[in-house]
């Protein structure tokens, strides 16, 4: 474990060096994710200029849920973005072999290799929006609330990461799974708004099948509605743990089934 952190530090330091080299690229990346989020927030704001509440949720409550959804998403984006490359090109080009020849767990190596600063665009928007909504809604943040918030973010991040590992692992068999991953990742869009606006089947799917509901809506209800956090943390934590175990199992199976595509 200590070796892991030492290695990770080395990788991150390398990334900072790159960042300094390609400052404009970092700015483009972060700015693009920021603007992407801003347009969606503007959309919410225009809707609320015309209606007082959306299915019983006020403007700031929706901002809260939306802002919350960006935290696990942004954190996962920051840490594990390389999984996209696995799914899209690395396996197909035959470059995956290198991870198997190093004295380190291949999955950890894949994750450590990229530290995606672009994600700050999402993450910072999320924090600003969450703070703004919390002030407007007069939400009190004591030690318990902060603990719930942190746990919920960890659970949410784990859900995102597990989904990515699971579908990136498919590439170990079929060489290219990026677009399949894309579909499942995009279904997290459903989680940015209250789960209650969706029809029953959609609600069921994003709660129990692809549990993105736990990345924003369920934990948010603790803060904005005073609901018990047990469902969000308990069932959400369980869902995240199961998903994580499944994805690791599939990944390991994939590793043993892997045949290089290299020429």
């Amino acid at each position, binding site marked *: 474990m200590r070796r892991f952190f030492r290695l990770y530090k080395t990788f991150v330091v390398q990334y900072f060096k790159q960042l300094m080299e390609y400052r404009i690229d970092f700015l483009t990346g972060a700015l693009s994710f920021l603007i*992407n989020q801003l347009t969606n927030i503007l959309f919410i704001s225009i809707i609320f200029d015309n*209606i007082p509440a959306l299915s019983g949720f006020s403007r700031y409550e929706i901002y809260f849920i939306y802002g919350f959804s960006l935290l696990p998403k942004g954190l996962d984006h920051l840490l594990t973005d390389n999984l996209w490359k696995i799914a899209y090109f690395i396996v197909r080009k035959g470059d995956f072999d290198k991870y198997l020849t190093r004295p380190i767990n291949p999955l950890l190596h894949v994750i450590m290799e990229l530290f995606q600063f672009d994600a700050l665009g999402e993450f910072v928007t999320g924090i600003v929006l969450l703070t703004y909504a919390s002030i407007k809604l007069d939400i009190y943040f004591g030690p318990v609330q902060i603990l719930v918030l942190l746990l919920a973010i960890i659970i949410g991040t784990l859900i995102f990461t597990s989904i990515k590992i699971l579908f990136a692992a498919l590439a170990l068999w079929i060489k290219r799974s990026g677009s399949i991953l894309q579909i499942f990742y995009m279904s997290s869009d459903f989680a940015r708004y209250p789960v209650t606006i969706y029809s029953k089947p959609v609600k069921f799917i994003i709660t129990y099948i692809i549990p993105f509901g736990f990345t924003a809506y369920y934990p948010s209800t603790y803060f904005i509605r005073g609901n018990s956090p047990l469902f969000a943390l308990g069932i959400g934590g369980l869902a995240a743990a199961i998903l994580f175990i499944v994805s690791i199992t599939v990944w390991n199976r994939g590793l043993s089934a892997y045949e290089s595509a290299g020429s």
Partner: protein
Amino acid sequence: MSKRLQKNKFLKTYGAFTRAGVMDAVAYKMNFICFFIGEIFYCFVMYFIWKAVFESSGSGTFMSFSMTDMVVYLFLSNITMFFTDTDSTYAIGEEIKDGSIVMRLIKPIQVDLSYLFYELGNKSLVMSTVFFPVIIGVEIYKYNVAGHIAFDIGKFLLFMLSIILSYLLAFYLNLVFGYMAFFLMNLWGLNILKGSIIKFFSGAIIPLAFFPEIVTKIFSLMPFASLSYTPVMIYMGKYTGKDLLFAMGLQVFWLVAFFFISKVVWKWAQKRILVQGG
């Protein structure tokens, strides 16, 4: 050389790119199907949000749009975006970065036309496999709500014409974006940026009519509105007479403008290609 021969030669040269485009599209059909499903997902998220908005607003209409209008708008504008979106930005950027663009430069062809004809192959598949089915779906939905067929062939033909203009404009606009690869390495970020700018200003997220009047006016003059808003409004019958002529005239104007901008940027960029080419 006679004119006829010249035309044959043109078709022979660029037809090869179109064939390659069709073959690539077939080879990567999984990719394409998945992106399409992703778009449909997005449409459904938006559908539920708008449904909640209409239910919460208490009245049957929201800013002069009925729920039926909204559903038609949503699916049409997204399928239009899907159709007019081009991969050329990314393709050109990658070729500039790895230097393989020289393979196009050493051939006696126009670089932009080679990309365009390549994409025509891909687009003809999109047209037949998803575009028309979605249009038919929208018409069936309208029939279910209204109880009678409200399909207007004249409007449809104008819509098709407008969509072709949209596509060509999108192509040249993306080409200009693609040439940015000479200055930036982060093409992925640039693509996301371009995507969100286009989605927002073209009205794919919120119909431009929902903005304050002055903002609507400014936005509809910008090139982005010509990318999907104009054809969709024509299809929905919201543009008629003078408005229609003006909107389509604007499409032509932006197409010509971006055609020339892309030529100028290309000429200037070509001088820099020596630095990057591998």
